[in-house]
């Protein structure tokens, strides 16, 4: 065991010293010009102790010294795995649905609020998954379509007084149009070039929202967007429908849940269809796909437009929930966030994306106390992920079980 430790202590020490060097400017230099060491050393020693424990476990595991613990654990894990596989998928889905349905009854206002953003981001993540995970086009300006959807509802609602349910398809439609306008010239590019161009177009849309004072009220944003309204049957004085504004967050949660479920079903169906197969062939090898008779341009545009529609729908919900929209909500950082959720969860995998979104939205909320270190932890998580689970938390399963192929 000492032998193994001798091998690793050198890079470990260098790494920790390097971390100290990086940490000090972050924590030790204050805006008023004073320099301190106290805080840096405290944080650093916590990290030192933590990583030392991890290192020891790693070394011991390598030498089989931990066999007495590792064996039972792996046996339990194996058992859990076999039972979980034995249960059919619908039980898992059903359980997940029940939890999702009763969740707002237990969670408070704050918890429901966080859950709503998780659901909206699931819709966004699934839409981006169509573009990035299935068709393989790196899109860095995705959030712009979310913005188009949100502004469509906000403008139509505040100017023309149109209701949410009329605006919802329109939001999707306008986002789709925006997607086609952006996609038509850009989709001739491949790979890195496409990423840069989409980044540019995403910023263009945001800057238009920011500067078109007459239409979007510029950086001040649009206030007073109405929440979702529904008609409920009322049985007093005979049978009539009465209009309700859904100001209650719990009710809104259910609509957002509905949106997320619809998005998941759509993406699932698309994935296992002829269109999904065409997208995947484009991701794998565009020229070969073309030679096999796939009209790559149309399918790429379709993927782009589909992604935009999901973003547009989520955007309308966003505007209805916030009851306020401003260009600040649609910055590049948001695009990067959604992309991180997709990559973290596992490209092309629906449960993976749901988990990725939940991790990246819910965890920062839970660990509010460590807010100033958020980006640090975020970066570290990404590095660790790429080392240990490069295909994402729940990698997409590809075992040739497209529905119509089972008999083959």
């Amino acid at each position, binding site marked *: 065991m000492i032998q193994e430790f001798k091998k690793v202590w050198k890079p470990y020490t260098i790494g920790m010293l390097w971390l100290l060097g990086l940490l000090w400017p972050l924590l030790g230099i204050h805006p008023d010009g004073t320099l301190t060491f106290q805080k840096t050393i405290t944080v650093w020693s916590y990290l030192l102790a933590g990583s030392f424990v991890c290192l020891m476990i790693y070394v011991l595991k390598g030498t089989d010294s931990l066999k007495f613990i590792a064996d039972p654990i792996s046996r339990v894990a194996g058992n859990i795995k076999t039972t979980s596989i034995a249960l059919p998928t619908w039980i898992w889905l059903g359980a997940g649905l029940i939890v999702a349905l009763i969740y707002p009854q237990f969670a408070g206002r704050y918890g429901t609020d966080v859950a709503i953003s998780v659901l909206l981001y699931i819709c966004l993540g699934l839409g981006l998954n169509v573009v990035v995970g299935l068709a393989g086009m790196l899109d860095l300006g995705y959030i712009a379509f979310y913005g188009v959807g949100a502004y469509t509802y906000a403008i139509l609602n505040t100017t023309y007084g149109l209701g949410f349910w009329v605006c919802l398809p329109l939001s999707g439609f306008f986002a789709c149009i925006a997607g086609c306008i952006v996609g038509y010239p850009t989709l001739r590019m491949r790979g890195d070039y496409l990423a840069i161009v989409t980044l540019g177009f995403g910023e263009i849309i945001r800057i238009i929202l920011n500067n078109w004072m007459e239409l979007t009220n510029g950086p001040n944003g649009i206030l007073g967007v109405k929440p979702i309204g529904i008609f409920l049957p009322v049985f007093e004085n005979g049978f009539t429908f009465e209009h309700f504004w859904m100001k209650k967050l719990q009710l809104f949660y259910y609509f957002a849940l509905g949106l997320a479920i619809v998005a998941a079903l759509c993406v699932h169906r698309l994935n296992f269809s002829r269109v999904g197969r065409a997208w*995947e*062939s484009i*991701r794998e090898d565009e020229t*070969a796909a073309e030679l*096999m*008779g*796939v009209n790559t341009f149309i399918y790429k545009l379709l993927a782009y437009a589909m992604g935009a529609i999901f973003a547009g729908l989520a955007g309308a919900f966003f505007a209805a929930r916030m009851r306020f929209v401003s260009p600040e909500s649609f910055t590049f950082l948001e695009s990067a966030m959604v992309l991180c959720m997709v990559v973290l969860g596992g490209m092309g995998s629906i449960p993976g994306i749901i988990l990725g979104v939940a991790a990246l939205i819910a965890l920062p909320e839970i660990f509010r106390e460590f807010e100033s270190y958020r980006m640090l932890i975020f970066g570290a998580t990404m590095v660790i992920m790429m080392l240990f689970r490069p295909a994402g938390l729940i990698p997409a399963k590809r075992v*040739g079980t497209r529905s*119509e*192929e089972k008999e083959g």
Partner: protein
Amino acid sequence: MSIQPMLELKNVHSGYGSIKALKGISLKVMPGEIVAIIGANGAGKSTTLMTICGIVKVEKGEVLYRGKVINKVPPEKLPTMGLCQVPEGRRIFPRLTVMENLRLGAFYRDDTNQIMKDIQHSYEMFPILGERKSQKGGTLSGGEQQMLAIARALMTKPKVLLLDEPSLGLAPIIVQQIFDIIAQINKEKGTTILLVEQNANLALQAASRGYVVETGEITLEDEAPSLLANPKIREAYLGE
């Protein structure tokens, strides 16, 4: 009136930007033939196939398929017309399964039942693909990938099959197997085959006629046996 050629190139020029790769290629492929194009690296063999398929645009001249000019036909339309290419380096879809790769070959077709039968037929033709049907394409060996690429192209039900360097990077015994399959496809299905090869010996043995391409031009055209016997060819391409 003679028989109409399946595929004909008339003085075709094409290239990549300012680089002119083809400088007036003319060739004919008759129905049911196996024709080989041989030549050194960079002679324009693969560009010829890519130009036929429309991936590289024709700058001058005409490409005719069954008497129809197909210069402007987009590449994805060609499989529906019965013209399909097995590209150089296989280019199968590495993260899709063998089954899905085959399904993509039949992408333009909508006769699901017949597609399933054809997939079964591919498995009979290439038993190894049947064994690996749920495996990802990228995990197959080179020879298996080449078989998959050929099987995938056959799923389009081609009348003319363009094969680009099927022997690339394969062991001699596998190469022989691949060429046997090519001959079998030609004989059983009557598929016309245009074959591009660096391995001139093998290609000319399989083919009935051959063209020699040098720096974008056809320098020699003859029956395959006489090309094989030609001392110039033997010296330049067969290493004698």
